């Protein structure tokens, strides 16, 4: 089915393939192409960076600098690096039923639903990057990087035999993003380097959630709720990173970077399932489930032609800009030399970074169903309703300020470096006004890592093998007053939003990240 959709879209829009997406796809982008303090990410990608809790902008001594601080490419030796993270996220949600919520689900307004947790299968995410010095002062870099996020989330569809309480926010989502990136850096003045990167992001999102068909009192979810899965692809998410790196002295280096990314604006389609939250469906009998598919000309409703050639869903996920500044104190093993290579050159270092992220720009997870033949015309088979032309789900985040402290200790010169770090980031979430797309409470992280170097040539060639571990503690995001405001559910009939919030309650979470990496210095 997905192949059919992709073919249909390609026919229409050349390169843009389409995928299925669902209605209430409000949720989800598990990862985004950013760096410091992005609410969708943890700090931070790269063998050295992760083991230092992200305190790395003033070090920038690995090819992954193409994504974090491209200025750091200048002066690096020719090197290629690759790394993989396995992020294990724990996220649980205990929903409180809003005072005005009249859904007939057996829970009284103000009552507490069963706690549900993410059980998504971890998906490793990785990067590959190379740095190539053209001259001692000019370098270029290239690679494919990914966001340091959690690609897959899977909450249950049912809890205790009933429709799961978080279903209006999220059921399942998978977000995959790759960002081919090119960079250049130049040492404009002695010790002062500037650099820039351009990325061409490709993002694929598949997300499902539930939407009530009608907004009426005393309606049972089993009768009324529709499950919607939206899958969408954006083949061009432009991104730019500017960086600066200054070796102020043999003992002090400063770094700064700013990253901007366009929003993900992905085109795809939706698969709808009416009667998917009935007791019968909970028992595994899906014979009464009525499916729709906006990639099919008839939308899954025989006799209709409302869906045209597909490509009926447009998903928008704003990606916040980020900025990082840092100062690094280093104790050199010898007088600084080119190329910069801290494991060879330094005894230890300590870096302090300050980060900022424009998380307040995430004011919605956008979802539109313009339809092939005009707005508001895409039917949901098995119901009397249509997909809402505007299914945007509002969000409220606050800008995030973070501090990172990390350093390396070269315990065996030119052979082994150990590192550790810690970070703190302010809470991004406005409680009640966020979904389950991110760990957005106040964050504290501890990280450790190590790199072992194995020389392979007399003239400096070496293989580096790295490991890292990050533990991120996330404070609960709680809005437990039944009378509080918050994120509504997207509904199938006008005005397409429930008058009551569905995100009240407590979101708990934490994250463990395992990292392995390798680099080869030419």
């Amino acid at each position, binding site marked *: 089915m997905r192949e059919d959709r992709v073919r249909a879209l390609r026919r229409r829009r050349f390169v843009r393939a389409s995928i299925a997406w669902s209605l209430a796809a409000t949720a989800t982008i598990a990862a985004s192409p950013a760096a410091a303090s992005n609410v969708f990410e943890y700090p931070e990608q790269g063998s050295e960076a992760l083991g230092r809790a992200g305190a790395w902008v003033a070090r920038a001594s690995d090819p992954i600098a193409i994504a974090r601080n491209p200025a750091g490419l200048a002066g690096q030796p020719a090197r290629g690096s690759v790394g993989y993270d396995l992020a294990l996220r724990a996220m649980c949600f205990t929903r409180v039923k809003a005072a005005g919520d009249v859904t*007939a689900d057996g829970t009284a307004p103000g009552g507490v639903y069963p706690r549900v947790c993410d059980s998504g299968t971890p998906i490793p995410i990785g990067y590959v990057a190379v740095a190539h010095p053209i001259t001692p002062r000019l370098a270029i870099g290239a690679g494919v990087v990914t966001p340091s996020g959690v690609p897959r989330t899977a909450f249950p569809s049912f809890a205790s035999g009933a429709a799961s309480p978080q279903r209006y926010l999220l059921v399942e989502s998978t977000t995959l993003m790759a960002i081919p990136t090119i960079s250049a850096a130049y040492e404009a003045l002695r010790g002062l380097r500037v650099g820039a990167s351009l990325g061409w992001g490709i993002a694929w999102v598949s997300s499902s959630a539930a939407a009530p*068909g*009608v907004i*009426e009192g*005393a*309606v*049972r979810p*089993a*009768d*009324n709720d529709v499950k919607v899965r939206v899958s969408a692809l954006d083949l061009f998410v432009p991104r730019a990173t500017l960086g600066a790196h200054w070796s102020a002295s043999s003992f002090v280096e400063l770094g700064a970077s700013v990253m901007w990314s366009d929003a993900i604006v992905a085109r795809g389609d939706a698969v709808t399932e*009416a*009667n998917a939250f*009935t007791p*019968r469906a909970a028992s595994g009998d899906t*014979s*009464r489930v*009525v499916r729709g598919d906006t990639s099919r000309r008839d939308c899954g*409703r*025989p*006799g*209709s032609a*409302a869906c045209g050639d597909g490509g009926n869903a447009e998903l928008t996920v704003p990606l916040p800009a980020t900025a990082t500044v840092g100062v690094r104190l280093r104790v050199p093993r010898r007088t600084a030399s080119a190329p910069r290579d801290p494991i060879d050159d330094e005894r230890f270092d300590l870096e302090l970074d300050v980060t900022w992220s424009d998380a307040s720009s995430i004011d919605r997870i956008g979802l539109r169903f313009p339809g092939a033949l005009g707005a508001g015309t895409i*039917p949901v*088979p*098995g*119901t*009397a*309703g249509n997909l809402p032309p505007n299914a945007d789900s509002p969000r409220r985040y606050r800008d995030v300020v973070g501090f990172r402290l990390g350093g390396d200790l070269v315990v065996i010169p030119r052979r082994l470096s150990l590192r550790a770090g810690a970070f703190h980031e302010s809470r991004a979430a406005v409680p009640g006004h966020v979904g389950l797309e991110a760990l957005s409470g106040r964050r504290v992280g501890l990280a450790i890592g190590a790199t072992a170097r194995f020389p392979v040539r007399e003239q400096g060639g070496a293989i580096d093998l790295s490991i890292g571990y990050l533990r991120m503690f996330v404070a609960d995001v709680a809005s437990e007053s039944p009378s509080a405001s918050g994120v509504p559910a997207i509904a199938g*009939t006008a005005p397409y939003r429930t008058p009551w919030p569905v995100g009240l309650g407590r979101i708990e979470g934490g994250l463990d990240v395992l990292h392995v990496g390798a680099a080869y210095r030419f």
Partner: protein
Amino acid sequence: MKAGWPHSPSTTMSLASLPRGSSVLVALALVAACQASPAADPGSVVAFSLEAELAAGQEAHFCRYVRMPDGPPDQRLFVRGGRHDLADGTHHYLLYRTRVTAWADGMDRVVPCDEHEAVMKSATSYVTGGQTPHEDADFPAAAALAFRPGEILLLQGHFVNASPRARTVRVDLALRTAASSAVEHEAGVLRYYNPFIFVPPRGKATAKMACTLKKDITLLSAAAHMHARGVAYRAYVDLPGAPPSEAPFYTTKDGLHPTFYAGFMALPAGSTIRYECDYENAAGERPVVQGLSAEADEMCMLSAFYYPAMAPEDEACEDMSGHGTGTATCLDTVACLEGCPVSERPDFSSGDPRVGACWQRCITSSCPAVTGALFPELACTAAKCAAECAAMGEPCRACVIERCAAELDACARTACAP
């Protein structure tokens, strides 16, 4: 369903068997032509159409018989949704069940069919209809309407050609079928038709009607139907033992293009559905009453899909009540009716919706409590004193006093609120 599916009063007891709806709302264009009924194919589309030529300025009803696909006699065919497309000049269409059980050559031809035409005598209750140009919806909750394999239906269109030229009018209806294994609930259609409307010249009036449910149901939709003088519509639910609701669950202010109610309203047996239609006849020189003409008459209807399906007589509300908007007592109303021409007396049991203007004025002038007691008395009269009451007079009165004493006593004891 969003698109209303029309209402048509079917039959039953005396007063209760109301008119076969005439005008109405929804819109479905149906199916195919139907000579040879194809085999049932659950999960497919059954299409019917109705096309006619209309002269300039002409208003007319046209019908054709259509037929559901064949199948094993013991295996019903389920329809889980449908689509209709109405060409310009279509006021509404209705799809009726019929008493016809055998298909004959030529039955699929289009014929005139207002309520007095012979073909309409075969119609029983409508199952869907509409008046919006396009509508496309499925029943929620895996509900579906059940049909017999090969069931013969009547597709009726009400057309008005206001243009100065002849035009072709057309109704297209597509019904989506579903396998029985995909059906959770058998749906039905409430068809409430208020036969009593009286709007004085240059005046305003409200028509009211109430119906009490005999079984538990879940209401899926509700749709109003009025004609051009309809300015407001309200529908209420009074739960058993609860005081009358003051908050309508459904309102619309556009008689010609009403909005619809869609939801899942669980109504226990004993619940009463009340609905009211407001009319303005500011420019009229004569009274406007209930009737079939979209131009000259008015209607006040409520059509609603629900599940599980009830008996046809319950869907048509044979025990209707609550029509009065005046102050006349039950006996005053009987006296008022006695003054009406015998020729205006309704014959609801035949399915004929016609009621004389005098009758409509008398009924609407009664107080709200009257018709609940009056209609049983009139039903008794029709059943036990038909001969004596062929003409009004002493023999009729004597018969009623003798044979319908209990009903007459109940009528006399019915009090009107001060």
